């Protein structure tokens, strides 16, 4: 909603419209501001805001879906949970230190607590590092080759790959057709070659249809709880959305 580049112009226009209306009301009342005049002004402001917001309600409903930077789900997968646990542990260590200095915890208790928290915090840091390494290697925690991005990115890559294949096939079909034309010009039988080209074009159409379908599914799957929570999360995404 806030990505609208002309929003400031629109807001300024609304402000001008409100100011003109208020000035008119005041002028009509000979600049004598009384309680009724004040509430008429408020009513006018409400009318302007009503029109603007109801118009935007309709416009938003009719607008095409826009899934860009603002993805549906924020990344709260295993990595997100680890980040959260690390933050909690760091605060717990700080709190234990503070409690000890305040006299609420004996040194032995505080040390024992902090030791436990530190051990777990280091485990968490190691786990997080492992995720970073896996990101670098492009494999999942089980060692399977995997794109480092979200499921949608993986599917987008898959679609792109298929389209590239389809593009290559189209090129091949054109080449085959060109060869067939050449052959026909040369008086050679071209039926077999033309049939092969038609088959390739049909295959290309099928791949494109499949790609469209995959793209649609991708939008749904990306936001599915299970998929997002089970997947490692891209750190940039995490930063952008948290």
């Amino acid at each position, binding site marked *: *909603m806030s990505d609208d580049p002309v929003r400031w112009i629109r807001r300024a226009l609304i402000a001008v419209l409100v100011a003109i209306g208020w000035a008119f009301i005041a002028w009509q009342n000979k600049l004598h501001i009384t*309680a*009724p005049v004040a*509430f*008429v002004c*408020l*009513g006018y*402001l*409400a*009318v302007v*805001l*009503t029109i603007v*917001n*109801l118009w*935007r*309600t*309709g416009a*938003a*409903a*009719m*607008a*095409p*879906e*826009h899934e860009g930077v*603002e993805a*549906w*789900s*924020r990344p*709260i997968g295993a990595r997100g*949970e680890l980040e*959260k646990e690390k*933050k*909690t542990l*760091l*605060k*717990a*260590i*700080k*709190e234990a230190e*503070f409690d000890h*200095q*305040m*006299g*609420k*915890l*004996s040194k032995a*208790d505080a040390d024992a*607590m902090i*030791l*436990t928290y*530190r*051990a*777990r*915090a*280091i485990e968490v*840091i*190691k786990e997080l590092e492992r995720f970073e390494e896996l990101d670098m290697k492009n494999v999942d925690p089980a060692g399977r080759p995997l794109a480092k991005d979200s499921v949608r990115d993986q599917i987008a890559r898959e679609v792109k790959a298929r389209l590239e294949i389809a593009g290559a096939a189209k090129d091949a079909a054109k080449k085959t057709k060109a060869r067939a034309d050449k052959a026909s010009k040369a008086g050679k039988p071209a039926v077999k070659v033309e049939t092969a080209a038609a088959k390739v074009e049909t295959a290309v159409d099928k791949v494109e249809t499949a790609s469209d379908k995959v793209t649609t599914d991708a*939008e*749904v799957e990306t*936001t599915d709880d299970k998929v997002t929570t089970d997947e490692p999360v891209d750190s940039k995404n995490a930063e952008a959305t948290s």
Partner: protein
Amino acid sequence: MNGETPFSPIALVGTIALLTAFVAAAWSFAAGIAGNALKSRRLVTSAVYGLYGFGALIALASSLMIYAFVTHDFSVKYVAETSDVTMDTWYKVTAFWGGLDGSLLFWVLVLALFSTVAIAVNHKRHRDMIGYVVGTIMAVQLFFLALLIYTKNPFATFLTNPPVDGKGLNPALQNYWMVIHPPSLYTGFVAATIPFAFGIGALASGRLDDMWLGSVRVWMLICFGFLSLGLILGGRWAYEMLGWGGYWAWDPVENAGFIPWFTATAFLHSAIIQEQRGMMKTWNLLLVVITFFFTIFGTFMTRSGIVKSVHAFGEDNVLALQFVAFLAVILVVSLGLIIYRQNKLATKTEFESFYSREFAFLLNNWILLACAFFVLFATMFPTISEALDGSRVSVGPEFFNKWMTPLGLLLLFLSGAAPLLAWRKTTQERLWNQFMFPSAFAAITIAGLAIGVPQTRHLSPLLADGLRLPVSLINFGMVAFVVGSIAQEFWRGANVRSKQTGGDVVTSMLGLVLSKRRKYGGYIVHLGVAVLFIGFAGKAYDRMIDRTIDKPSVAAKVGDEHSWKFGDYTFTYENLFHTSDDHKDAFTAQVSIWIDGKKIETVYPAKWDFHKNDGQLISQVAITPRYLPWHYAETAGAGDVYLVLTGYDLDSSQANFRVYLNPLISWVWIGFLILAFGTLVCLVPQAVVDRLQWKPQTRIGRAADAGLMLAIIAGVTLGIASQAHAAPPPGGGGEHVPAGMGMGAAGGGYAAQNRPANDTESHAMKELLCPCGCARQSILECDCATAAKLRAKVQAIMSGAKLDSDEGRQAAYDNVLGVFRSEYGEDVLATPRSKASWLAPTIVVIAGLGVLAIFGRRWIKSGQRDAAAAVAATAGAPAVDDKYADKLDDELAETDD
């Protein structure tokens, strides 16, 4: 729409605005939920704009409604019923929420404004659930809007000729406190909708991590703050307007605001356990749901007529049924979603020790919920008993006090003890170290008061008449314990920070409050609660006297027949006036207050008789606060001198006065201001603190910034405080009535008749409620003729009784109650004698403690086992790699204290 039928363009446009708002709300509701379920960004965006548009439409409808008030459009029924042409403009504006229909529109307006802010701030942060949040808010709005459109349309017009003038606003509401009290209480009620909507959004979307908790906690804190403000302003209004010398009478309308206050407070504590330990997710969601449920239930109680109250809106069975259906939907949907999401909500609950802060929070939750349950039960008990056996009983303030006093004292103790405990566990040695100073301070206070102020040793009934304890002494001891505990926390915390940062103690304390503002803001709130309890304790020492003086004299002197003495004060009745203006007759007495022959104040207690109020007189109490240090030197105990004109005879100028000496009552208002200050500290945004941390770099500069920040918060708090003196300027020293106004008309002096001759009579009169239709006052306090007659009856029954032994006094007391009970029914008793009235709260409170003890032991065993395993694992683990240890230290250095 011809000349014969009244036509109001305001009403027409207003109704169209409400209908359009209904459509917008329905669209937002559907688009929000469908958009979130289908993961359609455009639908959710549309729902959000729909919510903004809805807010604008309701603002339009409200502007039109107020416009109708200020332009006297009496063709609108609601305007004609709640205003007239003579009212001040301010009261015309506040008449907007002075009646049932307008109050519902006002509710929708406040929720629309709040939800607009909440959604604008959070729609990006919680974009994966915002559709459900908008849908939930709009479902609530649809309910209230449906009530407005189908049942209680404030824009409804007369079918025949409209009246020339309106009926006027209820005179009791024509008070400056009424300008700010309802909006603040409504805001508190409405604010509970936002956490509820986020809770439902989290449940519906399955995003049940801790992220939603942060937003919910802030809104619950706002809800807590406004509920507190609304309750205290209501108390102040009652104190000044109702003339019975108190600020809280456990009236159902007061209780309706108090019940969600308890549950919101419980949530604010248990949410910390979830944040710190990741436990109690289900419990926190339940508290969010319960708090919202109680806000709607409170609205139901006060608007359906199901309970009888001095300021409820009257009986309405249709409205009651609609509310019951809505409450059922809330429960079914919320609990259904919680059960549905149990797999995601289930967390392992474990504690390492009973002596831990998290367990203290659990106990606090138990007490707060016990309070909420008890207040709900006692408020509803007359209705429940009537439904069960057809006899309506009364539950007077005494019954509430007997229960709420021990629960309140326990809560007070915990508010001092919990900050002393560490998270997870506190060893015995540390316990001693932590508790030594506050306990010693409490012990010294108790000993000092018991020796120096013998009245504090007075025994008061607790839970039952048979159990009598020095409640005041315990109360003051607990207050001292909390003050000691909080002071120790601040002092030690500031010292630790001083060592860490190298700053002085004052700078460190300011830094400490801002860097750990939730914790230390919370401590300030605890301190405020302790100060409030000083004021509550003062209630035990209230003294009251009624005097009838035959004639005033401008030359009245101390000791003559125009004067009377009470405590250290002497009062002289000097004059009696009667004046009139457009909407009332004012009957005003002029009384001077003297100490040791020196006049300290001239006050003007009065009765106002509004022309359009069928003879109901409104008291204008004269309150003289005396709390400054030299006041303590002048009199044995300082406090409010509260003077009420209870009766008068215009022909003879005879007047009857009631004087209350209310010691310590100002601590109630001061305690609230401290509580408000603490709440504001908790609400300081992180961005503000970050700015303070960045510039300037010098220590003095930082301290100045922090000091400025706290000064701004204090300024806001004192701004609220200044409202306490926002009364019209007193003329000639009187509190509300300008000098020169008069009084007259027929009067009684009933309040002074048949006053109790001994403690047993007084005790019995206090236990019997006056059936005159007053605000459930006892016959001891009520100033009507009926109360005077019933007091005579008590004295007649007791005449001849042997009162020289405890048994004799008890027998006489029981005899009086028995006679009244057989003659007037159970309804006349302030404390119900039904076993159910005692049994149900006892069972619930004890069962709650039992559950806590059983589960607590189990959780602690589990926690200790896991802690031991963790220690063993740590001990057996290989030495930590220095690289990781360094990395951890780096991260720790970057973590805020």
